């Protein structure tokens, strides 16, 4: 055992540090197409104090540190590009507080979406949090750190990073700080009215520090739930249909999808509208409001609502939605990659066309779609490409498609989301120089030795 390993074992216990080839292999890759890279150490801390000690150690010995939640980001953000320590946060999975009156929860950074969801259902059934359409093993902290979104992003305030009420963070320099109301008073209820420093750790891919605790907004969980699906062949009417639905202000979640599979849906766009209510009367009224909003369209019979008997609503009523997870394995072989792009809603038709063009170019299949964010202030558009990990040609084609898609998203006026290093470079090239310069100054301030997830958000 080398000295670093010994020191790490002293901090977290010998069972929670590993240098074995097998474990380093697992932590060297994710499910996407990014090249793997081995870490030197895998460490699982139990608390924030241990995280702080690990960061101090890493600073002293100039060891890179890559914080990792569920490891499900797909774009290689937790692949240790410069080796060093992968800091797997999954042991820190305690749910510390749920405030029923002020609707927030405080969780440790390794708490998964599934754990919080199950905990709330059992102990606080009147409350829920916004669930991303990721596997339940995705963590709350990982998701807010990448500006994730979920089933309440349309109706309840936007990206999950906007639902953060407070953070506890260990900076790259090793200091531990609290951000938001919890920095001043006991409650984790709000980031306002203080200077908002949480943004220094949201969207930074772990290059500024390690999030150790998160305060996250909770929302009422109404008893009744239903779904409507609107179907059209005309890509260009999608933004107006979406606008009309958003304008009703009654839809909890709005998703748009276009996929060549199954065959009977090839060329048809589906707009999935989820509704919730406290009473059946309210639910029926909301359905009527949505239908009335689209009357001008469906009366022509050029588009319309799919009849959906209760028994056939199945997965559509669930959060997270399973459709994309099922699609992820369509090629078998366990490979899945997508470019998410945050973009204006009106760009959806062009994004669809571009996605189809790119996949035609490389002869790969696709699932395209979008989730409406914050009542139409933007959309998270995804270009999803499944592939077979055992097929190198397949991987190569998807890699090229990914690069083209990142470039296309920027050209369309969107910004690639949680993008891999090559995508980050494209963004930085297009970014105002003063902005990227400020980013680098902030990074240097918070992580003076450059140990935090090196390779990410770097200007060369």
């Amino acid at each position: 055992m080398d000295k670093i390993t010994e020191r790490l074992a002293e901090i977290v216990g010998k069972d929670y540090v590993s240098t074995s080839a097998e474990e380093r292999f697992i932590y060297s890759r994710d499910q996407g197409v990014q090249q793997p890279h081995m870490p030197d150490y895998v460490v699982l801390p139990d608390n924030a104090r241990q995280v702080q000690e690990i960061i101090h150690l890493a600073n002293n010995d100039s060891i890179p540190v890559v914080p990792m939640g569920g490891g499900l980001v797909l774009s290689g953000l937790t692949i240790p590009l410069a080796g060093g320590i992968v800091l797997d946060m999954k042991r820190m999975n305690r749910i510390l507080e749920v405030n029923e009156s002020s609707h927030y929860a405080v969780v440790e950074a390794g708490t998964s979406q599934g754990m919080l969801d199950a905990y709330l259902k059992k102990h606080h059934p009147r409350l829920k949090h916004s669930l991303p359409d990721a596997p339940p093993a995705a963590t709350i902290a990982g998701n807010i750190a990448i500006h994730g979104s979920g089933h309440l992003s349309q109706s309840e305030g936007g990206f999950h990073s906007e639902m953060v009420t407070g953070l506890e963070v260990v900076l790259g320099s090793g200091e531990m700080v609290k951000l938001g109301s919890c920095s001043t008073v006991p409650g984790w209820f709000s980031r306002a009215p203080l200077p908002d420093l949480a943004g220094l750790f949201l969207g930074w891919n772990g290059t500024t520090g390690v999030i150790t605790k998160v305060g996250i907004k909770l929302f009422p969980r109404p008893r009744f739930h239903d779904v409507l699906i609107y179907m059209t062949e005309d890509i260009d009417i999608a933004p107006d249909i979406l606008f009309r639905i958003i304008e009703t202000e009654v839809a909890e979640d709005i998703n748009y999808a276009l996929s060549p599979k199954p065959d009977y849906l090839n060329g048809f766009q589906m707009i999935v509208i989820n509704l919730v209510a406290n009473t059946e009367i309210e639910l029926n009224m909301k359905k009527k409001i949505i239908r009335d909003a689209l009357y001008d369209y469906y009366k022509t019979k050029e588009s319309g609502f799919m009849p959906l008997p209760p028994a056939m609503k199945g997965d559509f009523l669930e959060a997270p939605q399973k459709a994309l997870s099922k699609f992820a394995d369509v090629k078998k072989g366990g490979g899945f990659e997508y470019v998410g792009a945050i973009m204006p809603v009106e760009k959806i038709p062009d994004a669809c066309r571009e996605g189809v063009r790119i996949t035609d170019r490389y002869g790969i299949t696709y699932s395209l779609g979008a989730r409406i964010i914050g009542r139409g202030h933007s959309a998270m558009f995804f270009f999803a490409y499944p592939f077979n990990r055992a097929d190198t040609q397949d991987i190569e084609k998807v890699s090229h498609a990914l690069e083209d898609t990142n470039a296309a998203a920027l050209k369309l006026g969107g910004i690639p989301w949680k993008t891999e290093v090559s995508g980050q470079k494209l963004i930085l090239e297009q970014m105002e120089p003063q902005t990227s310069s400020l980013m680098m100054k902030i990074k240097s301030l918070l992580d003076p030795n450059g140990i935090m997830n090196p390779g990410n958000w770097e200007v060369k």
Partner: protein
Amino acid sequence: MHELKFDPEICKSCTSCDCIMKCQYIDLESDQAKSEHAKLVAGEDSSILHDCVTCYACEEYCPFGNHPFYLIVERQEQRGVHPAPKPLEESQVIMMGPKGRIKPKELSPPVMNMCFFTVMNGGIRGSLFEGVSKFGGSDVFCNLMFLHFARNSTIRQRLPLMIENIMKNFLEPAGAKELICYHDECYGTYTSWAPAFGIDVPFKPVHLFDFIYNRLVELKENIKPLGIKVAYQRPCSNRLCPQTDHFVDDIFSLIGAERPKREFEYENALCCGGVPEAQQRFELTEEIQHKNVEDMKASGAAYCVFNCPFCFWTLSEPVLKAGLIPIMMSDLCLMALGE
């Protein structure tokens, strides 16, 4: 090819215009009904083409068997009237189309075609269906549902192939001359639509309720009378074979179920609401379902029994909310058999 056997002279001499006057969804005075129907016969635009909910009932109402509903569908298609949204129609055409994926299967009589409802295979069980061989899927699907989408042409095009698939792959190898139709839409296809369009059916279709009745007679000693009131949700396709409706009463008398008196029963049966919903007629859908379920409730029925799985899926929730138990006919009979 396969032209509809329709005689305009019969309509000209018809004085009652029952096909329209008895319709529960088109509200026209006698003169208007005749005039609109005359336009229909002449191939002109008629309000009937746009207002029809495609409940099939006029096939039963016409005292001359002159196929008023098939004519409506013909005219809708000729005039480009789409009862349901086009994307929905087009995706259904692809979804329900033959896939050429027939798997050889060793069968022996009695043989049952599950239609597109192979998901209901689990319901074909117990002593009621002992020894029954079954097959199903999109390669043996009658396609009659396209009557709801103004697409007689799709049925015309596909039905001969379906019949051939059934014969060559299932009935002939099994040495079977009869085919039990799980869905009475298939039975209606072979006994009503196919003859109306001059398509030969080389086997004897057997209605599911006919089969169940005869099997229950054989199992009579095992039946424990249920002693319950059961409302029957008559499906649209049963309008094509009203001669089979008596099997409901016959089965009920064997299993000790009572078919209570209802307003919307027999000829006045109401649609489950699935098709009007597909037609984007949401208020009508709610109204029909409400009237139907309230009528079941008022009759004192404890159960609502279904013939068609699609009706079951569509109406189960409103039925349950009204306090009745939705059940397929086969399960109701299995209940009486204690299985």
